[in-house]
Protein backbone atom coordinates (compact mmCIF):
# COMPACT_ATOMS: atom_id res chain seq x y z
CA UNK A 1 0.00 0.00 0.00
CA UNK A 2 2.72 2.48 0.98
CA UNK A 3 4.47 1.81 -2.31
CA UNK A 4 1.30 2.56 -4.21
CA UNK A 5 0.82 5.77 -2.24
CA UNK A 6 4.40 6.83 -2.94
CA UNK A 7 3.86 6.20 -6.66
CA UNK A 8 0.68 8.26 -6.59
CA UNK A 9 2.33 11.07 -4.65
CA UNK A 10 5.21 11.27 -7.12
CA UNK A 11 2.73 11.55 -9.99
CA UNK A 12 0.69 14.22 -8.14
CA UNK A 13 3.80 16.25 -7.49
CA UNK A 14 5.17 15.91 -11.01
CA UNK A 15 1.86 17.00 -12.52
CA UNK A 16 1.54 20.00 -10.22
CA UNK A 17 5.18 21.10 -10.52
CA UNK A 18 5.79 20.59 -14.21
CA UNK A 19 2.24 20.79 -15.34
CA UNK A 20 0.94 19.10 -18.44
CA UNK A 21 -0.79 20.36 -21.54
CA UNK A 22 -3.85 22.19 -20.26
CA UNK A 23 -2.71 21.99 -16.66
CA UNK A 24 -0.17 24.81 -16.31
CA UNK A 25 2.42 24.14 -13.64
CA UNK A 26 4.02 25.63 -10.56
CA UNK A 27 5.43 28.54 -12.57
CA UNK A 28 2.06 30.17 -13.21
CA UNK A 29 1.01 30.97 -9.59
CA UNK A 30 4.59 32.01 -8.88
CA UNK A 31 4.74 34.48 -11.78
CA UNK A 32 1.31 35.78 -10.83
CA UNK A 33 2.50 36.37 -7.26
CA UNK A 34 5.58 38.26 -8.42
CA UNK A 35 3.60 40.22 -10.99
CA UNK A 36 1.25 41.53 -8.29
CA UNK A 37 4.23 42.53 -6.11
CA UNK A 38 5.79 44.25 -9.10
CA UNK A 39 2.66 46.10 -10.21
CA UNK A 40 1.72 47.42 -6.79
CA UNK A 41 4.49 50.05 -6.57
CA UNK A 42 3.55 51.25 -10.05
CA UNK A 43 -0.05 51.66 -8.97
CA UNK A 44 0.44 53.41 -5.60
CA UNK A 45 3.65 55.28 -6.41
CA UNK A 46 7.19 54.95 -5.12
CA UNK A 47 6.51 56.21 -1.58
CA UNK A 48 8.87 53.92 0.32
CA UNK A 49 7.11 54.35 3.67
CA UNK A 50 3.68 53.60 2.25
CA UNK A 51 5.02 50.52 0.47
CA UNK A 52 6.76 49.26 3.60
CA UNK A 53 3.59 49.75 5.65
CA UNK A 54 1.16 48.06 3.22
CA UNK A 55 3.45 45.76 1.26
CA UNK A 56 3.42 42.83 3.66
CA UNK A 57 -0.39 42.75 3.62
CA UNK A 58 -0.28 42.84 -0.15
CA UNK A 59 1.99 39.78 -0.15
CA UNK A 60 -0.75 37.93 1.69
CA UNK A 61 -3.42 39.01 -0.80
CA UNK A 62 -1.17 37.95 -3.68
CA UNK A 63 -0.47 34.60 -2.01
CA UNK A 64 -4.18 33.93 -1.56
CA UNK A 65 -4.97 34.77 -5.18
CA UNK A 66 -2.00 32.71 -6.39
CA UNK A 67 -3.38 29.75 -4.42
CA UNK A 68 -6.69 30.06 -6.26
CA UNK A 69 -5.11 29.94 -9.74
CA UNK A 70 -4.48 26.18 -9.94
CA UNK A 71 -7.84 25.15 -8.42
CA UNK A 72 -9.33 23.84 -11.66
CA UNK A 73 -6.53 21.33 -12.21
CA UNK A 74 -6.13 19.96 -8.69
CA UNK A 75 -8.85 17.29 -8.89
CA UNK A 76 -11.02 17.61 -11.98
CA UNK A 77 -8.65 16.26 -14.69
CA UNK A 78 -8.03 13.07 -12.70
CA UNK A 79 -11.71 12.68 -11.93
CA UNK A 80 -12.58 13.04 -15.63
CA UNK A 81 -9.92 10.56 -16.69
CA UNK A 82 -11.20 7.93 -14.24
CA UNK A 83 -8.16 7.87 -11.94
CA UNK A 84 -10.17 8.17 -8.74
CA UNK A 85 -12.44 5.26 -9.72
CA UNK A 86 -9.42 3.07 -10.49
CA UNK A 87 -7.83 3.97 -7.15
CA UNK A 88 -11.09 3.22 -5.34
CA UNK A 89 -11.23 -0.22 -7.01
CA UNK A 90 -7.79 -0.91 -5.62
CA UNK A 91 -8.99 -0.09 -2.12
CA UNK A 92 -6.95 3.11 -1.74
CA UNK A 93 -8.82 5.46 0.56
CA UNK A 94 -9.86 8.84 -0.79
CA UNK A 95 -8.82 10.47 2.47
CA UNK A 96 -5.21 9.39 1.97
CA UNK A 97 -5.31 10.43 -1.67
CA UNK A 98 -6.54 13.86 -0.70
CA UNK A 99 -3.90 14.23 2.01
CA UNK A 100 -1.22 13.40 -0.57
CA UNK A 101 -2.70 15.89 -2.97
CA UNK A 102 -2.72 18.63 -0.32
CA UNK A 103 0.94 17.92 0.36
CA UNK A 104 1.79 17.95 -3.36
CA UNK A 105 -0.19 21.14 -3.89
CA UNK A 106 1.56 22.80 -0.96
CA UNK A 107 5.00 21.78 -2.27
CA UNK A 108 4.15 23.12 -5.72
CA UNK A 109 2.76 26.51 -4.67
CA UNK A 110 3.49 27.20 -0.98
CA UNK A 111 7.20 26.48 -1.10
CA UNK A 112 7.81 28.41 -4.37
CA UNK A 113 5.92 31.35 -2.84
CA UNK A 114 8.20 31.27 0.20
CA UNK A 115 11.21 31.22 -2.12
CA UNK A 116 9.82 34.17 -4.09
CA UNK A 117 8.86 36.21 -1.02
CA UNK A 118 12.33 37.82 -0.60
CA UNK A 119 12.11 39.10 -4.17
CA UNK A 120 8.62 40.46 -3.53
CA UNK A 121 9.85 41.98 -0.27
CA UNK A 122 12.56 43.79 -2.22
CA UNK A 123 10.04 45.18 -4.69
CA UNK A 124 7.83 46.37 -1.82
CA UNK A 125 10.65 47.80 0.29
CA UNK A 126 10.07 45.53 3.31
CA UNK A 127 12.83 45.35 5.90
CA UNK A 128 14.45 42.16 7.15
CA UNK A 129 12.24 41.79 10.21
CA UNK A 130 9.07 42.15 8.15
CA UNK A 131 10.34 39.64 5.61
CA UNK A 132 11.07 37.18 8.39
CA UNK A 133 7.53 37.52 9.74
CA UNK A 134 6.11 37.11 6.23
CA UNK A 135 8.17 33.96 5.68
CA UNK A 136 7.13 32.42 8.98
CA UNK A 137 3.54 33.38 8.24
CA UNK A 138 3.67 31.79 4.77
CA UNK A 139 5.20 28.65 6.22
CA UNK A 140 2.34 28.37 8.70
CA UNK A 141 -0.46 29.61 6.47
CA UNK A 142 0.14 28.10 3.03
CA UNK A 143 -0.63 24.50 4.17
CA UNK A 144 -4.05 25.79 5.17
CA UNK A 145 -4.48 27.50 1.81
CA UNK A 146 -3.48 24.24 0.07
CA UNK A 147 -6.00 22.26 2.15
CA UNK A 148 -8.80 24.71 1.37
CA UNK A 149 -7.84 24.68 -2.31
CA UNK A 150 -7.96 20.89 -2.62
CA UNK A 151 -11.29 20.70 -0.76
CA UNK A 152 -12.89 23.32 -2.99
CA UNK A 153 -11.48 21.61 -6.09
CA UNK A 154 -12.97 18.30 -5.05
CA UNK A 155 -16.31 19.95 -4.33
CA UNK A 156 -16.55 21.81 -7.62
CA UNK A 157 -15.02 19.12 -9.88
CA UNK A 158 -17.47 18.16 -12.57
CA UNK A 159 -19.60 21.27 -12.18
CA UNK A 160 -20.05 23.62 -15.06
CA UNK A 161 -18.08 26.82 -14.37
CA UNK A 162 -16.49 24.93 -11.51
CA UNK A 163 -13.26 26.90 -11.78
CA UNK A 164 -14.90 30.30 -11.36
CA UNK A 165 -17.15 28.99 -8.61
CA UNK A 166 -14.15 27.44 -6.87
CA UNK A 167 -12.40 30.79 -6.68
CA UNK A 168 -15.46 32.43 -5.18
CA UNK A 169 -15.90 29.66 -2.61
CA UNK A 170 -12.25 29.58 -1.60
CA UNK A 171 -12.01 33.30 -0.78
CA UNK A 172 -14.33 33.39 2.26
CA UNK A 173 -12.81 30.18 3.63
CA UNK A 174 -9.34 31.68 3.30
CA UNK A 175 -10.26 34.96 5.02
CA UNK A 176 -9.22 33.81 8.53
CA UNK A 177 -5.79 32.84 7.19
CA UNK A 178 -5.50 36.22 5.51
CA UNK A 179 -6.55 38.13 8.63
CA UNK A 180 -4.20 36.27 10.96
CA UNK A 181 -1.36 36.27 8.41
CA UNK A 182 -1.58 39.99 7.75
CA UNK A 183 -2.31 40.68 11.41
CA UNK A 184 0.93 39.01 12.46
CA UNK A 185 2.74 41.83 10.67
CA UNK A 186 1.39 44.49 13.01
CA UNK A 187 3.53 45.49 16.00
CA UNK A 188 3.11 42.83 18.67
CA UNK A 189 1.42 40.52 16.19
CA UNK A 190 2.97 37.28 17.40
CA UNK A 191 -0.45 36.15 18.55
CA UNK A 192 -1.47 36.41 14.90
CA UNK A 193 1.09 33.77 13.98
CA UNK A 194 -0.28 31.42 16.62
CA UNK A 195 -3.83 31.91 15.41
CA UNK A 196 -2.62 31.50 11.83
CA UNK A 197 -1.01 28.19 12.74
CA UNK A 198 -4.20 27.07 14.50
CA UNK A 199 -6.47 28.01 11.56
CA UNK A 200 -4.09 26.38 9.12
CA UNK A 201 -3.84 23.17 11.13
CA UNK A 202 -7.61 22.97 11.49
CA UNK A 203 -7.98 23.32 7.72
CA UNK A 204 -5.37 20.61 7.05
CA UNK A 205 -7.02 18.28 9.59
CA UNK A 206 -10.54 18.63 8.18
CA UNK A 207 -9.78 18.95 4.46
CA UNK A 208 -8.89 15.32 3.59
CA UNK A 209 -12.21 14.11 4.99
CA UNK A 210 -14.28 16.85 3.38
CA UNK A 211 -12.56 16.43 0.01
CA UNK A 212 -12.87 12.63 0.13
CA UNK A 213 -16.57 12.97 0.95
CA UNK A 214 -16.96 15.28 -2.04
CA UNK A 215 -15.31 12.76 -4.37
CA UNK A 216 -17.56 9.96 -3.15
CA UNK A 217 -20.68 12.10 -3.34
CA UNK A 218 -19.73 13.04 -6.90
CA UNK A 219 -20.02 9.38 -7.94
CA UNK A 220 -23.71 9.20 -7.12
Amino acid at each position, binding site marked *: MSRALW*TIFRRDLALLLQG*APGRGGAALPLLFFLAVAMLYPFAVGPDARLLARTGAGLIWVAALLAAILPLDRLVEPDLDAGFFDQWA*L*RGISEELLMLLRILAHWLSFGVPLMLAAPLAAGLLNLDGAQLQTVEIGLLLGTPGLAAIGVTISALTAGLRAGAALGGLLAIPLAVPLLIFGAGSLQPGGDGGLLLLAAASMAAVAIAPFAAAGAIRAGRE
Partner: protein
Amino acid sequence: MQPCRLAAYDLACRRGDRLLFKAVGFELHQGDALQLAGPNGIGKSSLMRILAGLLRAYTGRVEHEGQRALSDERPALDAHRALGEALAFWQRIDRAGEARADFGLEDLLDVPVRYLSTGQRKRAALARLAASGAQIWLLDEPLNGLDAHWGASMQAAIEAHRALGGIAVIASHQPLQLQTLRTLALLDHLV
Protein backbone atom coordinates in the same frame (compact mmCIF):
# COMPACT_ATOMS: atom_id res chain seq x y z
CA MET B 1 -5.69 -18.15 -9.11
CA GLN B 2 -7.28 -17.34 -5.75
CA PRO B 3 -10.89 -18.45 -5.35
CA CYS B 4 -13.33 -15.77 -6.38
CA ARG B 5 -17.04 -15.15 -6.45
CA LEU B 6 -19.36 -12.34 -7.44
CA ALA B 7 -23.00 -12.33 -6.46
CA ALA B 8 -25.78 -9.77 -6.70
CA TYR B 9 -29.05 -10.02 -4.84
CA ASP B 10 -32.22 -8.12 -5.74
CA LEU B 11 -30.39 -5.08 -7.10
CA ALA B 12 -32.32 -1.97 -8.07
CA CYS B 13 -30.78 1.22 -9.39
CA ARG B 14 -32.17 4.71 -9.19
CA ARG B 15 -30.74 7.61 -11.17
CA GLY B 16 -32.33 10.92 -10.29
CA ASP B 17 -35.97 10.11 -9.62
CA ARG B 18 -36.10 7.32 -12.18
CA LEU B 19 -35.83 3.66 -11.26
CA LEU B 20 -33.76 2.07 -14.03
CA PHE B 21 -34.08 -1.61 -13.17
CA LYS B 22 -35.03 -3.82 -10.27
CA ALA B 23 -34.78 -7.39 -9.04
CA VAL B 24 -31.43 -8.05 -10.71
CA GLY B 25 -29.70 -11.03 -9.17
CA PHE B 26 -27.06 -13.56 -10.17
CA GLU B 27 -24.23 -15.57 -8.75
CA LEU B 28 -20.94 -16.09 -10.56
CA HIS B 29 -18.22 -18.56 -9.65
CA GLN B 30 -14.77 -19.32 -10.99
CA GLY B 31 -14.69 -19.48 -14.77
CA ASP B 32 -18.12 -17.90 -15.24
CA ALA B 33 -18.88 -15.13 -17.71
CA LEU B 34 -21.99 -12.96 -17.76
CA GLN B 35 -23.07 -10.56 -20.47
CA LEU B 36 -25.22 -7.59 -19.48
CA ALA B 37 -27.35 -6.91 -22.51
CA GLY B 38 -29.82 -4.22 -23.37
CA PRO B 39 -30.23 -1.03 -25.37
CA ASN B 40 -28.49 2.26 -24.55
CA GLY B 41 -29.59 3.99 -21.39
CA ILE B 42 -31.07 0.92 -19.73
CA GLY B 43 -28.51 1.00 -16.95
CA LYS B 44 -25.72 -1.36 -18.03
CA SER B 45 -23.00 1.05 -16.98
CA SER B 46 -24.78 1.89 -13.73
CA LEU B 47 -25.07 -1.82 -12.91
CA MET B 48 -21.38 -2.21 -13.73
CA ARG B 49 -20.49 0.61 -11.33
CA ILE B 50 -22.68 -0.95 -8.64
CA LEU B 51 -20.85 -4.26 -9.13
CA ALA B 52 -17.54 -2.40 -8.92
CA GLY B 53 -18.59 -0.81 -5.63
CA LEU B 54 -18.46 2.71 -7.05
CA LEU B 55 -22.19 3.33 -6.97
CA ARG B 56 -24.62 2.46 -4.23
CA ALA B 57 -27.51 0.25 -5.20
CA TYR B 58 -30.96 1.62 -4.42
CA THR B 59 -31.88 -1.76 -2.98
CA GLY B 60 -30.11 -5.08 -2.78
CA ARG B 61 -26.49 -5.94 -2.23
CA VAL B 62 -23.35 -7.17 -3.97
CA GLU B 63 -21.03 -9.77 -2.48
CA HIS B 64 -17.58 -10.41 -3.84
CA GLU B 65 -14.54 -12.47 -3.05
CA GLY B 66 -11.37 -11.56 -4.88
CA GLN B 67 -10.08 -8.35 -6.38
CA ARG B 68 -12.26 -6.49 -8.89
CA ALA B 69 -10.96 -4.57 -11.90
CA LEU B 70 -13.03 -2.25 -14.07
CA SER B 71 -12.51 -1.06 -17.61
CA ASP B 72 -14.90 1.63 -18.78
CA GLU B 73 -14.78 4.46 -21.30
CA ARG B 74 -12.21 6.38 -19.24
CA PRO B 75 -8.77 4.79 -19.55
CA ALA B 76 -7.15 6.59 -16.55
CA LEU B 77 -3.91 7.05 -18.48
CA ASP B 78 -2.07 10.38 -18.46
CA ALA B 79 -2.67 11.89 -21.89
CA HIS B 80 0.66 13.72 -22.09
CA ARG B 81 2.81 10.76 -21.09
CA ALA B 82 4.20 8.04 -23.29
CA LEU B 83 1.99 4.94 -23.17
CA GLY B 84 4.78 2.88 -21.60
CA GLU B 85 5.14 5.36 -18.71
CA ALA B 86 1.39 5.70 -18.27
CA LEU B 87 1.03 1.92 -18.00
CA ALA B 88 4.11 1.66 -15.77
CA PHE B 89 2.39 3.98 -13.26
CA TRP B 90 -0.38 1.40 -12.79
CA GLN B 91 2.08 -1.50 -12.82
CA ARG B 92 3.89 0.03 -9.87
CA ILE B 93 0.57 0.33 -8.02
CA ASP B 94 -0.66 -3.14 -8.96
CA ARG B 95 2.75 -4.79 -8.59
CA ALA B 96 1.72 -7.22 -11.30
CA GLY B 97 3.48 -8.71 -14.28
CA GLU B 98 3.26 -7.49 -17.83
CA ALA B 99 0.52 -8.76 -20.08
CA ARG B 100 0.81 -6.36 -22.99
CA ALA B 101 1.88 -8.98 -25.47
CA ASP B 102 -1.71 -9.91 -26.19
CA PHE B 103 -2.74 -6.43 -27.19
CA GLY B 104 -0.10 -5.38 -29.71
CA LEU B 105 1.11 -2.34 -27.79
CA GLU B 106 4.88 -2.90 -28.13
CA ASP B 107 5.23 -0.42 -30.97
CA LEU B 108 3.16 2.21 -29.21
CA LEU B 109 4.98 2.40 -25.87
CA ASP B 110 6.88 5.56 -26.85
CA VAL B 111 3.80 7.34 -28.21
CA PRO B 112 2.08 9.90 -25.96
CA VAL B 113 -1.36 8.65 -24.97
CA ARG B 114 -3.12 11.67 -26.51
CA TYR B 115 -1.92 10.63 -29.98
CA LEU B 116 -3.41 7.14 -29.69
CA SER B 117 -6.63 6.25 -31.47
CA THR B 118 -9.76 5.24 -29.59
CA GLY B 119 -9.09 1.58 -30.26
CA GLN B 120 -5.45 1.81 -29.21
CA ARG B 121 -6.44 3.53 -25.96
CA LYS B 122 -9.03 0.85 -25.33
CA ARG B 123 -6.43 -1.86 -25.88
CA ALA B 124 -4.10 -0.10 -23.45
CA ALA B 125 -6.84 0.07 -20.79
CA LEU B 126 -7.66 -3.61 -21.32
CA ALA B 127 -3.96 -4.51 -21.12
CA ARG B 128 -3.79 -2.64 -17.80
CA LEU B 129 -6.79 -4.57 -16.53
CA ALA B 130 -5.36 -7.88 -17.70
CA ALA B 131 -2.05 -7.07 -16.02
CA SER B 132 -3.65 -6.00 -12.73
CA GLY B 133 -3.97 -9.56 -11.47
CA ALA B 134 -7.59 -9.03 -10.44
CA GLN B 135 -9.80 -12.13 -10.46
CA ILE B 136 -13.06 -10.37 -11.32
CA TRP B 137 -13.06 -8.46 -14.60
CA LEU B 138 -15.80 -5.87 -15.06
CA LEU B 139 -15.77 -4.82 -18.70
CA ASP B 140 -18.00 -1.97 -19.79
CA GLU B 141 -18.27 -2.08 -23.59
CA PRO B 142 -14.85 -3.68 -24.07
CA LEU B 143 -15.36 -4.04 -27.82
CA ASN B 144 -16.07 -0.35 -28.46
CA GLY B 145 -13.48 1.06 -30.83
CA LEU B 146 -11.86 -2.33 -31.45
CA ASP B 147 -11.76 -3.75 -34.96
CA ALA B 148 -12.66 -7.37 -35.70
CA HIS B 149 -9.10 -8.60 -35.13
CA TRP B 150 -8.61 -6.96 -31.74
CA GLY B 151 -12.20 -7.71 -30.75
CA ALA B 152 -11.42 -11.40 -31.22
CA SER B 153 -8.15 -10.99 -29.27
CA MET B 154 -10.07 -9.36 -26.44
CA GLN B 155 -12.50 -12.26 -26.30
CA ALA B 156 -9.60 -14.71 -26.38
CA ALA B 157 -8.10 -12.86 -23.40
CA ILE B 158 -11.41 -13.20 -21.55
CA GLU B 159 -11.47 -16.92 -22.30
CA ALA B 160 -7.88 -17.31 -21.06
CA HIS B 161 -8.80 -15.42 -17.88
CA ARG B 162 -11.78 -17.73 -17.31
CA ALA B 163 -9.66 -20.80 -17.97
CA LEU B 164 -7.41 -19.67 -15.11
CA GLY B 165 -10.45 -19.48 -12.85
CA GLY B 166 -11.37 -15.83 -13.24
CA ILE B 167 -14.79 -14.22 -13.55
CA ALA B 168 -15.82 -11.81 -16.31
CA VAL B 169 -18.86 -9.55 -16.48
CA ILE B 170 -19.23 -7.87 -19.84
CA ALA B 171 -21.65 -5.07 -20.67
CA SER B 172 -22.01 -5.04 -24.41
CA HIS B 173 -24.68 -4.54 -27.02
CA GLN B 174 -22.62 -6.59 -29.47
CA PRO B 175 -22.85 -10.38 -29.63
CA LEU B 176 -19.94 -12.15 -27.92
CA GLN B 177 -18.39 -15.43 -28.96
CA LEU B 178 -17.68 -16.85 -25.52
CA GLN B 179 -18.18 -20.41 -24.31
CA THR B 180 -21.07 -21.03 -21.90
CA LEU B 181 -21.81 -17.34 -21.70
CA ARG B 182 -24.72 -16.38 -19.49
CA THR B 183 -26.80 -13.41 -20.46
CA LEU B 184 -28.67 -10.97 -18.27
CA ALA B 185 -31.17 -9.01 -20.36
CA LEU B 186 -31.89 -5.81 -18.45
CA LEU B 187 -35.04 -5.34 -20.55
CA ASP B 188 -36.59 -8.10 -18.41
CA HIS B 189 -35.92 -6.06 -15.28
CA LEU B 190 -37.50 -2.79 -16.30
CA VAL B 191 -39.67 -1.14 -13.72
